[in-house]
Structure formats: structure tokens, C-alpha cells
């Protein structure tokens, strides 16, 4: 998913992301990077937030109501008629030198339209209503280090933006792009003390989540997103930590989602799983949690078989049991180990984070980390790796 984040953001976290990012930018407190947490007083009070969530700010934006007709590569590009959109890449990488070093990474680009009606322009190339925010994290498993950074920019003047042909999405010098229309993608992002530069080659075709790509988040019409994934991307390139650069290979996952919706107020957060398994299949499932602790009926997922065929999963197809918890310094409790059973496809999986602290201490706090998978598929042993996203746990 990234439906997780998608909903998260749809859900007024769209607003909160903006607000919190901006407030922290502008109040002058540097975005916390690498495990240092921002002072709690910089975060908005929840009452204030909820006021903002209930704004009528959705009028005029295009809404996801009917299953779309996707067209690639066009739909890799931006959809400015919708209020928000993202390109979400996560993956697990191994060092090629046999040292056993392994890394997880996340590079996400969020796009927001500040006003409805698509892009605005004037003679000035700077004129735009598009805002881009990007999150970048690397999990250095061997060193037990989690590196985080964020960027934000207007989607004008070439500072940030997205194009479809050739594909490109970028904020400053963080980017995913293709040198030519059919070339493989390159993902690159660099901070002062960590960075990544890898080629991405799809091993499966894009898979449409939900109802042929229309992913409903509640009963309300239009409260849905357009959502597709490329669940398996062959990745190779380099990861840089400090002065050391590692040649790496592994698998990555792309989530693409755009919408103009907000969630109902009784939804609290979600747990999103994107797992790449040793049998060649991939599993995505998001579980929407309600304020009362129950699981929302709109929780859903997709199982992609080795050939790229998708099987839709509903809430009742999947049961998830939390086996362990982890507390951060601020006493927020996150689930930290799961057992996932999917009787319809015979899966019984144990999912364990490769490192406990993979919380993004960006302005919107969430946990997004690399995980290991072990278990059984119809009696046969199964292993795998993946990414999990947990939102709505950070209270502080």
C-alpha cells in the first residue's frame, strides 16, 4: 500500500503533513534527522488538527469514483486535478561484496495541489499551485542505524515535479527518472552522510489494487483513491553511508496513488504490509484501524502471483496477530512482530522488523521499516522480505 500513507494523508494527514512540515520549516526548527526527535511543543494540538480536517477544502478537485482506465507510461506521471498523489518506493538491498551488509530504503515523493482545477501557470515559471514533499530513509541493519531526511519544494521552475514520458519525479536532487521513455528507472537521493543511487527494473507489470485500481476508503462515494503498484523491481546500484559506498542488489516496491479524499474521523491509522516472498509471489495488505480498536471493513489487499496476476483480498480474508511491541523514547507503542494468516491462499507468515527503531521522525511521525518474513505456504517453507508502514501510533 502505501495506501497506508495514502489514506493517512488523504485522511487529513494531507493537511497535517503540510501543516506540520511547514510549521516546522518555518518555525525554524530543523527537521529532525537520524533519530533525534523534534520538541513535542512544535507539534500541533490535535483539536486544532481536527478542525482543519473538517474543512471544505475538497470542493473542485477531481474525485476517484469509477474504476479508472490506466494508461502507462502516462499514469506514472502526475495527476494535478487530484489533490494529492505519491510515488512510494521501498526496498531491501544486500551488499555485493559478500560482507553480509544489508540495507532497507524508502524514497517517497508526495504531491499536493493547493487549489483545485489542475496546475496554474503565468509568465513566471515559478507560478504553481503544486507542492512536493519527499521523505528519504535508509536502514543500516549492520550498524543498527536509521537515517532519515526530508525535502519540500514548489512544483515549479523545475525545482520539483513529475513527468510521464520520459518518467521523472523529483524534489531538488532527489529523483526517480528514466533517461529515455523505455529505459529503466534510476532512483537517486543524497544527503551529506547517506545516499542511494540504484537502477530499478520492473520484474512484474503494474498491478491495479482494489476494484481495478479504485481503492475505496469508506462508504462515502469519492472517498477513494486510484492505486496501482509494481510489486517487484530488480534493484542494483550503490548505497552510501558516511564515507563508505556499497555496491548493492535487491528488490524494491513501487506504490502509486492519487486521490482527493479525506477519511472519516473515526479512523485512527493503519498497518500496511508489502512483502516479497521466496515463492515469487508478493503480498500487499492494509488494515485500517478505527478509534475503538476495531478493524475497518474497507481494509484490503492484493496477492500477486509469480506471473503478476492479482487476487483481491478483503478484510475478512486476512487475520493479523501482533506478537510483540516496541516503544520509542517518547513512549509511543508500535507493534513490532506479526503473524499473518491468509487461509484462502494457505499463507501463514511471521513478520519481524530487521531493526526495532525505523520510525520516521519527520514532521508526520510514522514507522516505516524493512522486515523479514518466514512461514509456510500450503505446507512449504516460505521466506521473504518486505516493508511495513504503521501510522496513527505516535501520540507524542
Amino acid at each position, binding site marked *: 500500500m502505501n495506501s497506508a500513507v495514502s489514506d493517512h494523508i488523504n485522511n487529513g494527514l494531507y493537511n497535517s503533513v503540510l501543516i506540520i512540515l*511547514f510549521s516546522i520549516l518555518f*518555525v*525554524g526548527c530543523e527537521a529532525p534527522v537520524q533519530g533525534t526527535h523534534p520538541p513535542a511543543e512544535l507539534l500541533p494540538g490535535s483539536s486544532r488538527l481536527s478542525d482543519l480536517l473538517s474543512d471544505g477544502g475538497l470542493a473542485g478537485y477531481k474525485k476517484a469514483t469509477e474504476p479508472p482506465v490506466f494508461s502507462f507510461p502516462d499514469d506514472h506521471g502526475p495527476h494535478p486535478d487530484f489533490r494529492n498523489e505519491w510515488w512510494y518506493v521501498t526496498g531491501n538491498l544486500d551488499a555485493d561484496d559478500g560482507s553480509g551488509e544489508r540495507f532497507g530504503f524508502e524514497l517517497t515523493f508526495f504531491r499536493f495541489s*493547493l487549489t483545485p482545477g489542475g496546475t496554474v501557470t503565468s*509568465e513566471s*515559471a515559478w*507560478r504553481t499551485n503544486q507542492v512536493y514533499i519527499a521523505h528519504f530513509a535508509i536502514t543500516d541493519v549492520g550498524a543498527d542505524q536509521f537515517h532519515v531526511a526530508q525535502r519540500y519544494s514548489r512544483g*515549479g*521552475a523545475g525545482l520539483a515535479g513529475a513527468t510521464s514520458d520520459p518518467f521523472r519525479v523529483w524534489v*531538488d536532487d532527489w529523483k526517480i527518472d528514466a533517461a529515455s521513455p523505455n529505459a529503466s528507472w534510476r532512483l537517486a537521493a543524497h544527503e551529506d552522510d547517506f545516499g542511494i543511487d540504484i537502477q530499478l527494473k520492473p520484474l512484474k507489470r503494474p498491478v491495479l489494487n482494489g476494484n481495478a485500481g479504485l481503492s475505496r476508503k469508506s462508504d462515502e462515494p469519492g472517498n477513494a483513491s486510484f492505486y496501482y503498484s509494481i510489486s517487484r523491481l530488480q534493484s542494483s546500484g550503490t548505497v552510501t553511508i558516511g564515507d563508505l559506498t556499497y555496491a548493492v542488489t535487491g528488490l524494491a516496491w513501487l506504490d502509486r496513488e492519487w486521490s482527493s479524499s479525506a477519511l472519516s474521523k473515526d479512523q485512527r491509522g493503519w498497518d500496511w504490509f508489502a512483502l516479497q516472498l521466496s515463492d515469487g509471489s508478493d503480498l500487499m495488505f492494509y488494515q485500517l484501524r478505527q478509534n475503538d480498536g476495531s478493524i475497518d471493513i474497507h481494509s484490503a489487499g492484493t496477492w500477486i502471483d509469480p506471473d503478476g496476476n492479482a487476487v483481491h483480498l478483503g478484510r475478512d480474508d486476512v487475520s493479523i496477530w501482533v506478537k510483540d511491541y516496541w516503544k520509542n523514547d517518547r513512549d509511543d507503542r508500535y507493534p513490532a512482530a506479526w503473524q499473518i494468516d491468509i487461509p484462502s491462499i494457505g499463507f501463514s507468515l511471521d513478520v519481524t522488523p530487521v531493526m526495532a527503531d525505523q520510525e520516521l521522525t519527520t514532521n508526520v511521525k510514522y514507522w516505516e521499516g524493512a522486515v523479514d518474513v518466514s512461514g509456510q505456504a500450503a505446507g512449504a517453507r516460505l521466506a521473504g522480505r518486505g516493508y511495513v508502514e504503521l501510522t496513527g501510533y505516535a501520540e507524542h
Partner: protein
Amino acid sequence: MPVLYRASLGYLRRHPWQLFLAILGICIGVAVMVAVDLANASARKAFISTMDILNGDASHQIIGGPGGIDESLYVDLRVRHGVRDIAPVVSGSIRINGTTMQLLGVDMFAEREFRSFVTLASDSETSSNTAIWSAESLVRGFLSGEPNVLLSSKAASEFGVRRGDNLDLIANGKKYSVKLMGMLGGDDRQQLSNLVIADISLAQDWLGLQGKLTRIDVKIVEGDEETATRIASLLPSGAELLSAAGRTQTTAAMSDAFMTNLNAMSLLALLVGVFLIYNSVAFAVLQRRGLIGVLRALGVTRSETFRLILGEAAFIGLAGAAAGVVAGIWLGERLVGLVAQTISDHYFAVQVTDVAIGPLSILKGVVAGLGATLVAAAVPALEASSYQPRLAMTRSVIEQRTGTLLPTLCLGGLLLIAVSAGLLWASGSSLVAGLVALFLLILGFAFCIPLFVKHASSVLEPLAGRLGGTAGRLAIGGVGKTLSRTGVAIVALSIAVSATIGVSVMVDSFRDSVNDWLNTTLQADIYVGVPRGSVDPALVADVVAVSGIEAYSTSRRNWLETATGRIRVIALQKEPGSFAGTRIREGKPADVWNQFDNEGAVLVSDAYAFRLRLAPGDSVQLKTGQGMTRFSVAAVYQSYDSNDGAVMMSRATYDSHFDDPGVDSLGLSLQPGIGADVMIDRLRAISEGRQVLVLSSNASIRELSLRIFDRTFVITNVLYWLAVSVAAIGILGAMLALQLERAKEFGVLRAIGMTPGQTGVLVSVQSGFIGLLSGLASIPLGLVMAWVLIEVINRRAFGWQIDFTVNPTALLWALALAVGAALIAGIYPALNAAYARPALAMRDE
């Protein structure tokens, strides 16, 4: 307090007017100095602090040529090279309600590293730094596409607008209705009141700067040379990375010469004050020669006497300096507006409303006042201590001694003048050396004046005798015979009056030269421009196609900034066959225009030529879009529009080196029979709904230029009037002291039958004669001073070349001023003498 000092204080108490005048003299001298210093320092400080605030946390800035920087440079730095901590700025002048404001176009996302007053802007009327809501609404407001702006709450209240209100903004000749979205954050600082903040896209559109940035602000941690070097290596030719503080300093330094000149003017007032003090202390000593004799006889040593007189002077100096500091602060508050106005007219925009009372300025004033007093008092104090403790030190002995001193003094004066001339000749282009030479010259002249007075009075005495009998001879001859008392006052008045001659001749010459220059330069009938911006190229094409226009010229004036300061670059497309309204100072007129039009040669202003010692045939290096480029100098031309120096090139030359297609103004020559009114109507019609054109006749531009010129010299006038008033006080003091000295003489005259009227006339004639002599002595000094001001000081300070012209009425005015000041100062002493009761006067010991 020791009885000895009480004896001296008792004297001062008995002659309060003398004490008062001495204190007043030093007070005014110190006040002028402190005021000018405060005004200068305040203007400078205001500018620097404004720049510091505007620059925010930027340590460096990337600047480009006259057309600014291509915005793709910024995008490249960020997106291709991953440079962070940079922020784009598009800025320019705009007008709101007739007030010129600075528009700062920013990118909110980049701003957070730089300007907290932008990122802390809020929706609240009284700015505060709360409101997360405001941060979000700020970005929304800036990127919504609506014409939203931020102002300081001070500016908002001055314009009478509240948040959400609309106001009209004129930029680049067009009017826009904009909305006040919120107030600038942080403390509501004065420095921000001139500022309008908007999104960079709006700023580009309003200012017609699409595709361009005014500059890129850069934040580099101090000492991080690596980053600085890296960024510099990424810049294309035509752009460079400069330290922000250095840029501010360089800009501020442009007004240094102006400030130095003001300081020199203020020192002149103090110098006149020094003579006054000398005068007062010398009188006090003279009048107490008996008392000092008694004290010496009683066993008071020479050094005790010296200390006594000096202590007394120190008291006067301290009192005068203290009063002067207070008066100086008051005066400084009045002068600062004038100083800021001049700086804004000629150098850079600066707004000062408060005088920053710097302890250094005050200390300088006190030290100068006290120091000047002690120096001035040292001579009479030495004189007093040299008195033999003899009780009958007679008047005539002192006069005799003064008389024998005069030739020596005059010789010393001539020597000083020679040193001054040598210094002028040897000091190259140093402004400070020029000013030192000027002061030496004044001192040298001052030393010669007493001898002149002595001879003048002895030559004129017989004449006066024939005209006015014994009384006339007494009045005129008396001046020369009482030089120990009148000499210094005459010198003080002479210097003050000569300063008025020097300054007024300089200003008149300057004004004449500027007027001539304007006549030469303003050749077209109508000038077309837009308020705050450049004329739209399409409109230029349409304007010049209007029927009735015989020929036209265009000009673009822009700044070229370098690490050592900025120069003006003027791109001129002249009327065919015209001489571009330019007067060539050096160069062969026959060849100049061919080189200018066809060979890419440039003309340099005389100021620039003077500073860089350029002559036709030399070349100048300018940073253009192609990097450092060499231009050959075809000629030096006369120009008064910028003392930073100007380089003029043909439009074609300019366009091939700079990417800056704008046109600031068009000069239109009309066909015969076409009236300016008719043409103006046609132009208004054609520009309707496009840009607001400013249409000016050459006469109105000349008038405006001269008005600015006159405004520039207001402060100069104020300063020399203050010097004259100090001198008039000196004359008053001298006349009073003289009458006191001669009370017995007047008593005798009254006793033998002179009427009060006759006595009064006698004193008035004497005062007038003192004024006349001062005036006469001041003329040569004044003229020489004017010459030095024009040929040395102005040239070294501003590089301007001025034709020396003397208007005889200025000299007559100076004479009238001298006589008038002396007569006014003599009124009270004359009355005093007239109503002296002979019996009392005779009895008084």
C-alpha cells in the same frame, strides 16, 4: 575648592556673558560635529542593519550582470548539483500610494533558512510568531495564485489597510490590485517598513523579470571555504559569489566621500569655535593681568598660573562640550533626514527616523570640544604664566609685543600655506589629505590676517580722520592698535565668511556646470519612461512608430556590480547623426562616435576616468555574460549623474554582451510643427491599458534634476550658517570685551563731552570696520577655498569636474554678511558704551 580657583571662578561669575559666549561658541562647534557624526552614523547604521535584516542569514550572495541572473542557474544548483541552503530573490522598486517600496519576491520553501520575518509572518494584526496555521496559510497564500502580499504592520497602518484589504501597487509601469495577506513577523522593525513581500512568481510577473533572479542568497557556514569554492566553480561567467556583508559594506562605502565631506564641514565649525575659545580665554587673561600679577607677587608659581588658566578653560570646554552634545543630539535628529535624503538621492535607499546615539560620537564630541578648548587656551595660559609678577604690566606693552609678533605669525602662516600647497601637489587622489591641506590653508591664511588688519587700519586711519575727525580716527585706528583683542575675532569671522564664499562659489559653479550639462544632455523634446521599471519592448516599437516623431533614442541604465563596488552601465541607442547629448571632455570627437557605434568602444564618465586614471585609448574590463571582457575607451564624457562612475556603450554593444533587453527611457524628437501636448496625447492613447507611461518634457526633467541638486546642498548650507553664527558670537564676545577694556577710555571721552550717541556710533563704526576687514580678508581665502573644493575635494571625493565660475554678487554678499554680523554683534556693546556712566567708568579700577 582652593581659594586660588575661587579667585578665578569669581572672575567668571562677574563676567557671565563672557563665560556664556565662550561656552556657547564651543557648544555650537561641538554640536555641529556631534550632529553630523550622529547623522552620518545613523544613516550608515540604518542602511547596514536594514541590509542585515533583509539578507537574513545569508552569508553570501550570487549576483549577475545588469540583467540579473538566469533563474535556471538556481534550479541547476539545486537539482543538478544538490546545493542546498540557497534561496532565490527577485526584487525591485514599486510604488504604493506614491511611496516607493522595495518588493522582495521569495520562495517560501527556501526562505526558512534565511529570513525569519518572512517565515514568521502571521495573520495577526500585531505580528507574533505563533500560529502554525499561519505557516500553512502563508504557503497557501503564496502559491494560490492570488496577488497576496505581506507588509510590516507599520507600513500597513501607514497605508491604512488591514489584513484582507486590497491596495494598489504600481510596478513596471502597470497597476495591480493586491491583497494584504498578513503582517511580517518578528519584532516590528523600522527597517522592514519599506518592504513588500510576495511570492517570487508574482514578483517576476510584476517587475517584468520572468526568467530572471535579482540574486541568489547563499548560506555558507563561516570558514567553510570548500563549499564556497564549490559553489563559485559552478557559476557561469557573468555570475559571481560575493560575501553578503562585504556587499553591504561596499554599498555603504559609496557614501563615504559624502560623509567625509560633511565631517569636514562640521570640523570647520569647530575650528571657528577654537578661535572663539582662544578669543575668550585670551581676553580673560588680558583683563586679569593685574590680578595675575598680584598672585604672582604673592608667590603663585608659573606652572600654578598655567594650570589655573587651563583649568578654567577645561571647565568652559567641558561645560561647552556637554551642552554641545545635548544640542548635537537635537541637531542630529534634524540633520539625519537631510543626510538620509541625500544618500537616497545619490547612493542607495536608506530610511532613518531615529538617531542612533552612539557613545563613540558623543565621546568624539566631548574629546574634540575639550581638546579644542585646551589647545586654544594653551597659548593665553602660557602668556599669563609668563607675566612678570610686576604690578604695572601695561596695555601698551602687550600691544607692542603683539605687534612685533605679527610678522612672525604671518611668516608662519605663509609657511603653512606652502605646506598645504605641497600636500595638495603630492597627495595624489587622497581625499583626507586634500581636506588636511584645506585646513592647513585656512590656518595659514588665518595667521596672516592680523598683519593685514594692522596695515589696513593704519592706512585707513588718516582717511577716517578726514571723514570722521578724531572720533573716526579713534574708531578705525583703534582696531589696529587693539589687535591683541580684536585680532582673533576678526580671524574667526574671516574664516567663517570665507567658508561661505568657498562653499557658495563651489555650489554655484557646480550648479552652473550641472545646468550646462543638462542642457547638452536633454536634447529630445519628450522623454518616455515608466514608473519603476522598463518599457515593454512591444510598446517601445509602437511608440516610436507614432506619427510626428522625427527621431528617437533609447537608453538603459543599469548597475554592474563588482567586488569593489558598482558602476553604472548605460546602453544608448542614439538618434542617427546626433552626439547622444554628450559632451566629450577628452577624446577626438571626430572619431569617438564611429568607434562607439561600430567598434564596440565605450565612453567613460569623468568621475570614472578620474578614479581609474583612464584616458581615451585605454581600456576597461567589465564582467559580462562572456566573462571578463575588455572594452576600449573612446572618450571621457561629462556626467554628473553618478559618482560611482559610468560606462556608456551603444545599445548594440550592450546587447551583444549582456542579456538585458529592457529600455528605461525613450527620447523623442518631434517633427517641426508637432506640439509636445499633441504628442503626449497620442502617446497616452497608444499606451492605454498597457503600461502607465511617464512623459516628461526636457524642461521638467531639468527642473527636477536641479531640485535634487539643491536638496543635496541643503545640509551644506545649514552647516556653513552654523559656522557663521559661531563667528558672529565671536565678534559679539570680542566687542563686549573690547568695550569692557576700554570702559575707562569711554568714561574719559564721555567726561570730556562726547554724547552717548557719539560714543555709540564710535563703537558701531568700529564694529562695522572689524566686519569690513574680516570680509575683505575672507575674499581671497574664500576664493582659494572654492578652488580647492572644486578642483581637489570634489574631484577626489566624487570625481566630478566642475567649471570654476565666480559670481561677484556672492562676494558682495559675503562682505555684507561680515559687516552685518559684526554690526549686529556690536549693537549691545555700543549701547553699553553709550550708556556708560562716566563717573563710574572712571572710578572703576
